[in-house]
């Protein structure tokens, strides 16, 4: 979707400010939320693509007002309600609705390592990659309302394939419960002036990992 999250190339956000000796979390609630979100993920009711989309649909003005972990909180609540783990009333009241069934078992502490283990997107499926390193490719001019990982700044642009990554889960369908549909994933290099015009600095390039259905031969 053409959301505020897709901010590559925007102006006006000011300088990047680094913080010396930054803590992992800036407040206790950030740490608790981070953990709650991972523990809830263990129920297997959603995937990473759906989680990203749940944050992308936060209205733009709210998205910019929120801190990073406030977006996580909003996205998590959206997903939990969507899959029926909680109801909107329960979130508002802070207590289970009368008669709500108690779920068991929750993620146990000794199973945490398993939850934080690898969750690869590479799939061992037979595919015949259409492109190979060195090939010139052009991205589609596409503007889906749903989730996509082709940012606006890289649409309808021409680049060169530099690496083939194998077949990976396709976020555009996976985010919406329409299946993993693994397809070839490539790293594509775009020169700065192709993306940003002649005023771009020479000797700058941006690489993006792009699924085959975003691409056509150039």
């Amino acid at each position, binding site marked *: 979707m053409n959301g505020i*999250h897709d*901010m*590559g*190339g925007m102006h006006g*956000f000011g*300088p*990047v400010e*680094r*913080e010396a000796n930054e803590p992992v*979390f800036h*407040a*206790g*609630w950030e740490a*608790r*939320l*981070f*953990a*709650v979100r*991972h*523990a*809830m993920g263990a*129920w297997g009711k959603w995937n990473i693509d759906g989680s990203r989309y749940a944050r992308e649909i936060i209205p733009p003005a709210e998205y910019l007002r929120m801190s*990073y972990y406030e977006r996580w*909180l909003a996205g998590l*609540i959206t997903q939990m309600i969507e899959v029926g*783990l*909680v109801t909107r009333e329960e*979130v508002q009241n*802070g207590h*289970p609705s009368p008669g709500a069934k108690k779920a*068991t078992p*929750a993620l*146990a*502490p000794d199973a945490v*390592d398993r*939850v*934080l*283990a*690898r969750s690869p*997107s*590479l799939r061992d499926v037979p595919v015949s990659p259409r492109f190979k390193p060195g090939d010139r490719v052009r991205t589609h001019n596409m503007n889906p309302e749903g989730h996509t*990982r082709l940012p606006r*700044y*890289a649409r309808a642009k021409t680049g060169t394939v530099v690496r083939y*990554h194998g077949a*990976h*889960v396709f976020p555009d369908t996976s985010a919406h419960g329409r299946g993993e549909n693994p397809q070839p*994933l490539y*790293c594509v*290099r775009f020169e700065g002036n192709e*993306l*940003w015009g002649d005023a771009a*600095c020479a*000797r*700058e*390039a*941006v690489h993006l*990992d*792009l*699924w085959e259905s975003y691409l056509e031969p150039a």
Partner: protein
Amino acid sequence: MTHGHEHPHSHDHDEHSDVPSDAALRVKALESLLVEKGLVDPAALDAIIETYERKIGPRNGAKIVARAWTDPAFKQRLLDDATAAIAEMGFVGRQGEHMVAVENTPKVHNMVVCTLCSCYPWPVLGLPPVWYKSEPYRSRAVINPRGVLREFGLDLDTDVEVRVWDSTSEIRYLVLPERPAGTEGLSEEQLADLVTRDSMIGAEKLKPAGKGARQ
């Protein structure tokens, strides 16, 4: 704000007041709801926080870099198949499933961003710093990387090629910084002490030995 690691769970308040923030109250209420519904176990939450506050961090990445500097065969494996090479050192896990290492040289500077969200190689660098997740970095890293680097104090010569890596898939990127001058006699462990988190994102170059400041 100053937050010591001794009290990781005690900062539920706004910076300038003793009143708990709205977010803190909402998260507390949500956690208690989920506990009451049997959906989360508080002890498991503690274990997750412990993992990311104490066990996983940029020290892991620094060890990889130091080994690549001292072991040419490992460096080659890292550049050929970073996922396997990093797994050799035991660093595996969520948000590091598929790794690619990109090497800085005197003529090539690599820099990693996620313009769409905040993708970052957790098993080797830990959780991302706020600046990496911020709008200014996400918006400008791709359109004006040299300008961002200048703000970070790194003014690259015009003949240096800047390669930005926008993390649009589950592939995660680790920058292999240049080994600083004057470090010839150092051990792998001493070298790891020189490697900063930001150098492995491509936000800075490492200073010659004796002048580096660990983040």
